[in-house]
């Protein structure tokens, strides 16, 4: 059927790795932030909220460039991480994961936040009267009830991460085997004569992955409703 070449496989597997790592690393931060935005009132909350959504509305090339300035070899954070911890983002697949994580973060946080907001806080009060300390309330009541939303956020974030292009190519370029994801591979292929067939195959693959992720998110959202009704 689809005759996928080794080079194309490399791009597909790299994309999956980048998107999975980006999603897994972003998830704990996403949950913490979703909880903070859903439950706490603090000074600068609206600024934080806007900051989280910024990658959604900024031109991706701007986000990528800012990442390069910050996390590049000579960047403020990047230089420190490279010198002291040996972590390098620039022109590495880890940098692609960072770019995808940042770009997908708003989409990842949103369903998590909505599901935490939807939880009946009186259930948390009930848990407290039964002797549960606040962090236990979070892990035994809040998080389980928000779980479908958390998973939906992860799926959406993953779908966005796998399709990310602008910020990634700006930040870590388009190096086959290291930073060339499906998107940047397609971009290269359509600029090459005779690249159409290969580009077409990758287009089909990315549609399949994105569609699968969206259907998955929908399924989780429906489970969330059932769960909150205790059926």
């Amino acid at each position, binding site marked *: 059927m689809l005759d996928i070449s080794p080079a194309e496989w490399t791009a597909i597997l790299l994309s999956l790795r980048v998107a999975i790592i980006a999603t897994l690393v972003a998830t704990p931060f996403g949950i913490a932030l979703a909880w903070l935005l859903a439950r706490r009132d603090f000074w600068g909350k609206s600024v934080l909220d806007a900051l989280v959504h910024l990658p959604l509305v900024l031109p991706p090339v701007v986000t990528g460039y800012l990442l390069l300035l910050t996390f590049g070899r000579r960047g403020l954070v990047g230089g420190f991480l490279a010198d002291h911890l040996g972590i390098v983002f620039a022109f590495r697949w880890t940098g692609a994961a960072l770019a995808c994580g940042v770009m997908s973060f708003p989409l990842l946080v949103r369903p998590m936040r909505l599901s935490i907001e939807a939880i009946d806080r009186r259930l948390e009060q009930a848990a407290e009267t*039964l002797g*549960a300390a606040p962090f236990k309330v979070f892990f035994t009541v809040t998080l389980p009830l928000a779980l479908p939303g958390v998973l939906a956020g992860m799926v959406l974030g993953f779908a966005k991460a796998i399709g990310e292009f602008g910020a990634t190519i700006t930040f870590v370029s388009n190096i086959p085997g290291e930073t060339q994801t499906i998107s940047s591979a397609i971009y290269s292929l359509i600029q090459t004569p005779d690249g159409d067939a290969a580009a077409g195959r990758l287009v089909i693959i990315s549609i399949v992955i994105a569609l699968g992720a969206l259907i998955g998110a929908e399924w989780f959202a429906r489970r969330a409703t059932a*769960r909150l009704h*205790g059926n």
Partner: protein
Amino acid sequence: MLRVDVEKQLGEFSLHATFTSEGRVTGLFGASGAGKSSLINMIAGLLRPDRGTIVIDGDVVDDTAAGIHVPTWRRRIGYVFQDARLFPHLNVAQNLDYGRRMNRLAPDAAQYTRVIELLDIGALLDRRPGKLSGGERQRVALGRALLSKPRLLLLDEPLGALDEARKLEILPYLVRLRDEANVPMVYVSHDAAELRQLATQIVMLRQGRVTSFGGVKVLT
């Protein structure tokens, strides 16, 4: 023993209540808006008094002058809400076991069996709260609160959300609870008939003030 002497301003409404009760079941009686729920929530620690003290079993849980406010989860109380508030993601057995797990108590098979028989909920253990009737839900909520081994059981209109038939279904369980469970209770209700059956002492509230205190006779 329960000693309460608290003041709380809630918007226009001011609550100032003082009473000491040694009774097995202290009935907080009053019309809606009299401050019953605010008072019981202060005993539970869910609401913080502006001024005053609350002492449960000789243990000071609130003393605003000394800056003491023991958080709800450390008060070792049980609370049965009008709307049961069972955890929808857990089945009945897991709901019943929740308080024991949170308080790190050793399993107490004898108490477990006794509570389940007392409330007649053995057949419900595998079910989800969404599949229970209102009366069943309230019985499970009672069991859940008891099994956390509270030193004081608070009940806020536990029959309030039920129709007459269901009330009559639950009332005998509450009477048995009073006589057999050996946990002092604070029972909030606006229904004098209900309290006459259950309470041993009455605190009558009106517009945020205690207007009378004594045996069930004060209800007449």
